[in-house]
């Protein structure tokens, strides 16, 4: 490619309109051509009219579409968006022919299709083009990462390439009917008259509707197991039955695309997953590059600009705040945040005909927070700053900003509603400030009610169980007023902490207990926080107005302290952890377990398939190290010694301090996460301590030695969990009750829950530690103690159970043995043989184990359900028992009624066939009573895995 072609191709791809324009230096960096040379080419192209430039500095260049059609056609013409838009853009017949001749690739217009989504796009194309009918595809990605959007692109691609014969993209969200499996199935497969009450006529299902087209099943993990079974039968045979029919007589040709936010390994039937050869994983928003994030922002803003037909002007800090405001909801959250600020900007700039301006100081507090979120990630901020100009102007552009149908799209035109409402209020004679206030409340309401049905509203269900609804409502009202009137930023935790606080206070008043006294400590502490004190006064007034009784001054102080503690803590400084291990998912599964248990954010995984070259691995690990570093260095945990030599190379490559430990286990990752959870822990200390921990599990002698040591030094202090709330009385007591119940349920009788007040937290903790060994903490704030912590929200949303399990595990110095043998067939066989020897008298373990292993495999294959290794051991032991009973003529007995019932079971013929193996090899014929127990055992296991999956 010549220099000129390079420049043109780049501009064609990335700078198709004025707002996408690039500067000379950006271009030079991107295509690797010296700046003066780029500059020369650009000037030449501008003279020819092929490229346009903006006025003002720095100059931005972009493609002039009016010129050079012929030449463009000859160069591999890239992105046009959907096939349909080619016509809108280019009305001449010539253009249309051109668009058809060069097969349009809708994926090209997708942001990231050459970068973070490159593999995913290739997978999608492969899935669609695979002869003769394509491959079934599962898209996995977190909430809001664009699964529906991606599926849409697949559909359009399929349509353009004439892969599917019929237009029609049928979407079905399995979560919609998850509470009613029958209804869900009837929607999918249809039903016949009389199949159930109310089925008055035959009805075709979505599968029929989608015949010849594409069917997108979202949140497929909510599909009940029997639904998954019916779907996979359909995948295999192309036939299905409607509800109420016995034969599978209907046929349909449907491209199936599934999506889920969950890990398919644990949320879907394995028989189902095995039928899906293509699994596409979409990245988190935060895994995407700064450039892509910016492109996404621009595209979403263009969408809004198109809706309001005005330019949108925003400054650098607004861009940063918007990007930083994406916390858990990915692109979807960005989209809704953009809608919110644009609606607000629209309202504030109604008088302005051509432009709306988004000003930082007018942003809602949760979006303003985005700026500080971003600031705590210096690297990302740096990358972004390089791409940003002080001011950005987004213009309407019909080619780019066409909304796709997705669940983040409002079902009505919000801007029309705002306009109408504002006009109406103006007629009523309201001033602008009042109008803005009313309408803004409205906008919030619209967006909120919309997202509540959708995905972004976090549930606060658990709270309702212990706090009256009235108090929750009051707290929400307080939250709103603080945000809107006082401009005081409040976060998610606020509802929990404040409503619990109010609740305990009200209970206290109602029960006539004496009021809390204020200590001198408290007063002096609060006076360091004048803002919170002022806000607490407001909150007090609001509570007083609601309940119509005076609120004592002491409450103001307690609430002020609560507010102080609810301010977010700085995010810098934790030591990062990267786990790298061989195997497709070894590292990520360890990291998943640990981050679920501890809800930590300073840990990343890097999976290395066995065929991966060290060079690729090094680059991949370096990327993860960079991502996870918060300025305090990174601990690299690896599975094999050879990787431990990476340290120096990584330090060289990333300039981040890296320490490596090998022989990683889940327990070690857990320990590392625990140790680094403290802000003031440093890499060297953590490294030293972990190396010792490593030695702990290496050899049996060492373990025993260590155990003795531990016992010698063992802590005589009683174990305790501390529960922290503002006063140490109300909320914390409730937490204590809750935890006590869970502890008893786990049969833990040696851990005491101790309540602690925020005010003198640190002193109290020191005191507690004299008599107790603190093993965990929970409450409104995280104390500076090196123990697992669970937030109040998590605890109330059912996280208590998990929390206690974690404490149990750590307490037992648990090594996840189960996981290791689930991955090893050899180990399982060895273990089975060992147990056979221990528990049976007449059979030869060494000879029998392979026969019974084959027996398990046969059952697994025929029943199409994966048997866990743990269950295989159970089954092998059971079978050995059967054989011994046969040999000692003491076989089990079962009455005829039950026998005849078992003969109807699906598994009965499979077990009978499997028993043939025993007949052939050992000349043993088990009685039907023994078959009965084998079938029962398999059924019990199936029932168990089904309940776990739901």
């Amino acid at each position, binding site marked *: 490619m010549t220099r000129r072609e390079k420049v043109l191709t780049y501009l064609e791809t990335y700078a198709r309109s004025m707002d996408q324009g690039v500067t000379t230096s950006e271009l030079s960096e991107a295509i690797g051509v010296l700046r003066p040379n780029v500059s020369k080419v650009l000037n030449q192209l501008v003279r020819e009219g092929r490229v346009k430039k903006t006025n003002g500095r720095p100059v931005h260049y972009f493609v002039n579409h009016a010129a050079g059609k012929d030449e463009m056609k000859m160069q591999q013409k890239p992105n046009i968006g959907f096939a349909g838009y080619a016509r809108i853009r280019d009305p001449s017949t010539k253009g249309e022919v051109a668009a058809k001749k060069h097969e349009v690739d809708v994926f090209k217009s997708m942001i990231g299709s050459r970068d973070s989504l490159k593999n995913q796009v290739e997978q999608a194309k492969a899935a669609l083009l695979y002869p003769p009918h394509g491959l079934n595809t599962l898209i996995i990605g977190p909430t809001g990462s664009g699964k529906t959007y991606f599926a849409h692109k697949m559909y359009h691609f399929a349509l353009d390439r004439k892969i599917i014969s019929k237009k029609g993209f049928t979407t079905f969200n399995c979560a919609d009917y998850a509470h009613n499996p029958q209804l869900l199935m009837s929607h999918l497969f249809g039903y016949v008259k009389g199949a159930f009450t109310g089925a008055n006529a035959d009805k075709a299902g979505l599968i029929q509707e989608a015949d010849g087209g594409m069917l997108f099943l979202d949140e497929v993990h909510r599909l009940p197991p029997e639904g998954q079974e019916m779907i996979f039968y359909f995948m295999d045979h192309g036939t299905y039955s409607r509800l109420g029919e016995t034969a599978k007589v209907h046929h349909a040709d449907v491209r199936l695309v599934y999506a889920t936010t969950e890990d398919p390994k644990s949320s879907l039937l394995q028989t189902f997953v095995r039928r899906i050869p293509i699994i596409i994983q979409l990245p988190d928003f935060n895994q995407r590059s700064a450039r892509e994030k910016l492109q996404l922002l621009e595209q979403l803003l263009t969408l809004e600009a198109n809706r309001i037909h005005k330019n949108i002007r925003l400054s650098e800090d607004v861009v940063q705040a918007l990007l930083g405001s994406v916390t858990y909801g990915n692109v979807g959250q960005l989209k809704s945040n953009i809608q919110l600020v644009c609606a607000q900007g629209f309202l504030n700039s109604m008088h302005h005909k051509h432009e709306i301006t988004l000003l930082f100081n007018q942003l809602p507090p949760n979006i303003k927070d985005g700026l500080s979120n971003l600031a705590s990630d210096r690297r990302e901020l740096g990358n972004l700053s390089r791409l940003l100009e002080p001011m950005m102007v987004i213009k309407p552009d019909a080619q780019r900003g066409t909304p796709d149908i997705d669940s983040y799209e409002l079902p009505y035109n919000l801007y029309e509603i705002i306009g109408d409402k504002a006009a109406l209020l103006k007629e009523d004679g309201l001033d602008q400030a009042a109008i803005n206030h009313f309408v803004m409340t409205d906008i919030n309401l619209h967006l909120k009610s919309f997202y509540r049905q959708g995905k972004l509203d976090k549930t606060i269900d658990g709270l309702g169980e212990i706090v009256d609804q009235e108090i929750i409502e009051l707290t929400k009202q307080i939250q709103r007023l603080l945000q809107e009137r006082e401009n005081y930023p409040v976060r998610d935790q606020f509802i929990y902490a404040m409503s619990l606080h109010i609740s305990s206070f009200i209970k206290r008043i109602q029960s006539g207990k004496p009021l809390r006294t204020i200590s001198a400590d408290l007063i002096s502490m609060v006076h360091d926080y004048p803002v919170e004190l002022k806000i607490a006064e407001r909150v007090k007034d609001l509570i007083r107005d609601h309940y119509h009784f005076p609120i004592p001054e002491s409450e103001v102080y307690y609430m002020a302290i609560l507010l102080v503690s609810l301010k977010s803590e700085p995010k810098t400084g934790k030591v990062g952890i990267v786990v790298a291990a061989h195997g497709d998912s070894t590292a990520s599964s360890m990291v998943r377990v640990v981050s679920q248990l501890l809800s930590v954010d300073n840990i990343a995984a890097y999976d290395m398939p066995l065929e991966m070259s060290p060079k690729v691995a090094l680059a991949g690990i370096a990327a993860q190290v960079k991502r996870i570093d918060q300025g305090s260095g990174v601990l690299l945990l690896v599975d094999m010694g050879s990787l431990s030599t990476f340290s120096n190379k990584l330090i060289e490559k990333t300039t981040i301090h890296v320490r490596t430990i090998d022989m990683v286990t889940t327990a070690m990752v857990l320990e590392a996460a625990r140790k680094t959870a403290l802000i003031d822990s440093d890499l060297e200390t953590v490294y030293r301590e972990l190396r010792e921990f490593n030695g702990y599990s290496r050899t049996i002698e060492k373990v025993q030695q260590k155990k003795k040591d531990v016992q010698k030094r063992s802590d005589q202090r009683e174990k305790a969990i501390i529960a922290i709330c503002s006063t140490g009385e109300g909320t914390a007591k409730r937490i204590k009750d809750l935890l006590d119940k869970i502890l008893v349920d786990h049969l833990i009788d040696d851990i005491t829950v101790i309540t602690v007040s925020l005010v003198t937290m640190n002193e109290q903790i020191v005191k507690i530690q004299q008599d107790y060994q603190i093993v965990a903490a929970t409450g409104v704030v995280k104390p500076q103690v090196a123990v697992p912590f669970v937030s109040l929200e998590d605890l109330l949303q059912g996280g208590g159970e998990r929390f206690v399990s974690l404490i149990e595990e750590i307490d037992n110095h648990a090594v996840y043995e189960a996981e290791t043998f689930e991955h090893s067939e050899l180990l399982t066989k060895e273990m089975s043989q060992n147990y056979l020897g221990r528990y049976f*008298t007449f059979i030869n373990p060494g000879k029998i184990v392979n026969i019974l292993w084959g027996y398990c495999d046969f059952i697994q294959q025929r029943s199409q359900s994966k048997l866990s290794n743990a269950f295989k051991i*159970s089954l092998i032991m059971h079978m050995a028992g059967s054989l011994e009973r046969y040999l000692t003529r003491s076989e*089990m*007995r079962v009455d005829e009624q039950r026998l005849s019932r078992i003969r109807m079971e699906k598994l009965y013929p499979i077990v009978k066939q499997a028993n043939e193996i025993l007949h052939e090899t050992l000349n043993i014929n088990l009685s039907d009573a023994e078959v009965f*127990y084998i079938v*029962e055992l398999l059924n019990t296991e199936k029932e168990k895995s089904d309940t776990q999956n739901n």
Partner: protein
Amino acid sequence: MVMTMDVRFLRIDSRLLHGQVTTNWAKVIKVNRILIVSDRVASDRTRKTLIIQAAPPGIKTNVITVEKMIRMYHDPRFDLLKPMILVEDPVDARRIVEGGITIDSVNIGAISFDTTRVMVTDAIAVNPADVAAFKWLHDQGIKLDVRKVSNDSSKNLWKSLSEKGLV
């Protein structure tokens, strides 16, 4: 009335929780918990994991030491438990009863043969320590009920031990 933990079933079986228990006993006896009481298993991670994974659906299962079993039995916080207790051998069963747990019958499923033991029935082998423990249990008036599963006809182990001349 003072409430205490209602132990519904005490079973001796070398293999503790396995097919006969999950498919049969756990279904016919109304319990809300399965307690595997064994010092050995409580300190053996792998066996503990395996046993817990073999638990029947819907019934919580824990592995605890004999000492903890006795401690819990006398702790009013655990009064609501209606457990089925599984032990490996009669010695542990005796320790539990000595610790104060009230029961009028012990079920014996299987005790594995090893070089210290002799077979008494098709599935039960005993050594001198086992015999002493069974004798103690018998002397407390506790019935020694031999059944693999609930619908087997019950045999009295005391009779078999006597016939073999072991007691």
